[in-house]
């Protein structure tokens, strides 16, 4: 290919000495953006220093910290949350290849996770009397999931973004439906119906991980297994990321036509990314099945998908460190928010953080805080005199925050209806505040903040399962406003 005579002659001189014309030499302009992005002052110094640590250094630090978790605590709940977080990290790692690197919107991703889990369950449980060794099951399941991923992507490989999204979404729902109704499947109607997936009862009594005669039976053991598998997968993905294939993925996500014009086999690269991501999801599924000893279709439905996407986007799609951070933050937040007391702290923390970031200068901020506090105490005093029912309740959180709130926020005895009305008012008020500017906005902020506290204490606190999701949503929105590229994702650089 390259051997024809039209090659350009070799370099005449060292690059620096070549007498070539130099155009566009303007270092300051060129590096300005990069400098600004790192910031000034102490933050800038820290960031610049961190920038110099090679990335594997961070991963090593994470590995050490994660490995120490079961050492510093023997609390089974904490380790269980750690295990789940590692599973999510694995899932986000695989999705990162598909979405972050290759730029393919895969909405059927958790079906591959489910496929891996069910694959393990079928090959290592009394369901079909198969009790394969883990060393056999895991490779078989991973390869099978990769092939399945390949087959799902194959028909839609020519179709771009939106089509792939729909095809994969369809596939994901198909998986859930088939598995849920798989207790009486017959092959094209010719055979008698077989119970393949256990239907709504799932597959129970799954074997634990076992190899060389030993088996993993403790939670700590699974935690370390998940950690080891995650680190191995991370290393593999890191190496691919640093390879030419990794950079080819990145470039075709940036500009598929330009990539094609460089001679890259765009379709093949996409297929490989899709199958690679699916394989990691399948691998994660085996871990999930082995620890839980039972699998049900509902674990692999849309809610899981949304959580994994939230992790990826929060951390910054395309960044491996972001995968770790995103999974950690989202999963730990979801756990913390299960307890209303914790959730209250998070709620007021978020309010405070938003105020600090959004209300400037600090004199305005002080005025808003003082105004809101004053409004609360005044309202409380008035209500205590004129409407005793309005101050009878108890805040859900105890301690300092609780006793402060008791004298500040109105807590009617039967808050359901009034809470609902207030909720609607709050939504309207927030919309209204965002349309205002200047001092009018600051002024309107005062009653809105108080209303928010009222709605929280009287309504949202009663529905922790809903509130938790709302709060995580709010956290995502706030973070996205602060860092649109994700926590550690690099800024998307536009050519202007």
């Amino acid at each position, binding site marked *: *290919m*390259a*051997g*024809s*005579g*039209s*090659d*350009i*002659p*070799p*370099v*005449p*001189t*060292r*690059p*620096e000495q*070549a007498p*070539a*014309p*130099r*155009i*566009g*030499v*303007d270092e300051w*302009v*060129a*590096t300005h*953006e*990069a400098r600004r992005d790192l910031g000034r002052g102490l933050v800038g110094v820290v960031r610049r220093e961190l920038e110099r640590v090679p990335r594997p250094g961070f991963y090593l630090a994470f590995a050490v910290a994660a490995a120490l978790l079961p050492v510093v605590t023997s609390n089974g709940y904490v380790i269980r949350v750690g295990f789940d977080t590692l599973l999510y990290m694995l899932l986000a790692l695989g999705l990162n290849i598909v979405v972050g690197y290759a730029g393919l919107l895969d909405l059927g991703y958790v079906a591959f996770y489910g496929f891996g889990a069910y694959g393990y369950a079928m090959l290592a449980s009394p369901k079909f009397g198969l009790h394969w060794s883990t060393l056999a099951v895991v490779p078989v399941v991973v390869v099978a999931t990769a092939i399945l991923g390949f087959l799902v992507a194959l028909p839609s490989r020519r179709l771009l973004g939106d089509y792939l999204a729909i095809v994969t979404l369809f596939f994901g729902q198909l998986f859930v439906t088939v598995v849920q109704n798989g207790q009486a499947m017959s092959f094209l109607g010719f055979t008698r119906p077989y119970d393949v997936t256990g239907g709504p009862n799932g597959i129970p009594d799954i074997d634990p991980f076992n190899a060389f005669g030993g088996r993993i039976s403790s939670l700590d053991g699974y935690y370390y297994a998940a950690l080891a598998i995650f680190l191995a997968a991370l290393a593999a993905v890191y190496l691919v990321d640093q390879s*030419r294939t990794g*950079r*080819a993925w*990145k*470039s075709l996500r*940036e*500009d598929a*036509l*330009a*990539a*094609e*014009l*460089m*001679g*890259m*086999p765009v379709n093949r690269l996409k297929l490989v990314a899709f199958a690679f991501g699916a394989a990691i999801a399948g691998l994660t599924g085996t871990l999930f099945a082995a620890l839980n000893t039972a699998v049900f279709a509902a674990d692999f439905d849309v809610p899981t998908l949304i959580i994994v996407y939230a992790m990826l986007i929060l951390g910054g799609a395309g960044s491996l460190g972001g995968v770790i951070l995103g999974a950690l933050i989202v999963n730990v937040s979801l756990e913390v928010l299960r307890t209303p007391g914790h959730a209250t702290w998070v709620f007021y923390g978020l309010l405070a953080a938003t105020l600090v970031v959004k209300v400037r200068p600090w004199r305005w901020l002080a005025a808003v805080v003082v105004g809101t506090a004053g409004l609360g105490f005044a309202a409380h005093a008035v209500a205590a005199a004129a409407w005793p029912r309005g101050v009878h309740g108890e805040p859900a959180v105890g301690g300092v925050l609780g006793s402060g709130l008791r004298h500040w926020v109105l807590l009617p005895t039967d808050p359901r209806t009034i809470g609902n009305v207030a909720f609607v008012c709050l939504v309207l008020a927030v919309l209204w505040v965002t349309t205002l500017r200047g001092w009018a906005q600051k002024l309107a902020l005062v009653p809105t903040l108080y209303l928010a506290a009222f709605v929280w204490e009287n309504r949202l606190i009663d529905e922790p399962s809903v509130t938790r999701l709302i709060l995580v949503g709010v956290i995502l929105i706030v973070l996205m406003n602060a860092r649109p590229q994700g926590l550690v994702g*690099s800024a*998307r*650089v*536009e*050519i202007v």
Partner: protein
Amino acid sequence: MSGTGDQVSTDGEHGSPNGEPLLVLEGIDTFYGPIHILQGLNLEVRAGELVCLLGGNASGKSTTLKTILGIVEPRNGTVRLEGEDVTRRPTSYRIRKGIAIVPENRRLFAPMTVLENLEMGAYLHGGGSKEDFERVYSLFPVLYERRSQLAGTLSGGEQQMVAMGRALMAKPKLLLMDEPSMGLAPILVERSFEIIKQVHEAGVAMLVVEQNANVSLSIADRGYVLSTGRLVLEGKADELRENEDLRKAYLGR
């Protein structure tokens, strides 16, 4: 460097006298839906030649390049590369035959470094050898200094150099350039054409698409003038420069 010098001819303006031209377009009709864009286009580029294709906005210049690359298929006519009819061949095949392009608006991979951009240019050659990089750096010393900077943060002129360097990494026999002067300050336009000339003198055949007739004719061997999808003029560059119509239409003097 292999010692086959038969295709590179630096002796005459018209490239190699032996064998087929590198690129031949014959009677090309290209449509976008019902709209007839290119109308009976004939064009050729010989080995080692620098040809410019001039034309105003929306005259079909980019469409010509897309037809050459197979991004759009012509309804009639043939595209020949080194004598082989590639009209029904996919883009990848034509790229592998040795065409590279500096696309309109450059289309760099903005969040990737200069080095990575160059590497992607040599994707078909395993990412490029040390010599390939050295050769590009000798043409564009600035790129060597900026090799670990993100391409999207470069100045316009530097981006133009990355785009050219990236295309040259593929060691093309024929380099297509779509409006290299677009978006550059006048002084940068002249300098980038000096570089184009330098690349050409190194033996790469080029088809340069331009609106800027003055500067492109000053370095080209031959030129074509396109107007609403038809060729209205063609000839040697110096003859075209003296042509009354062209002067009126493009040179403004």
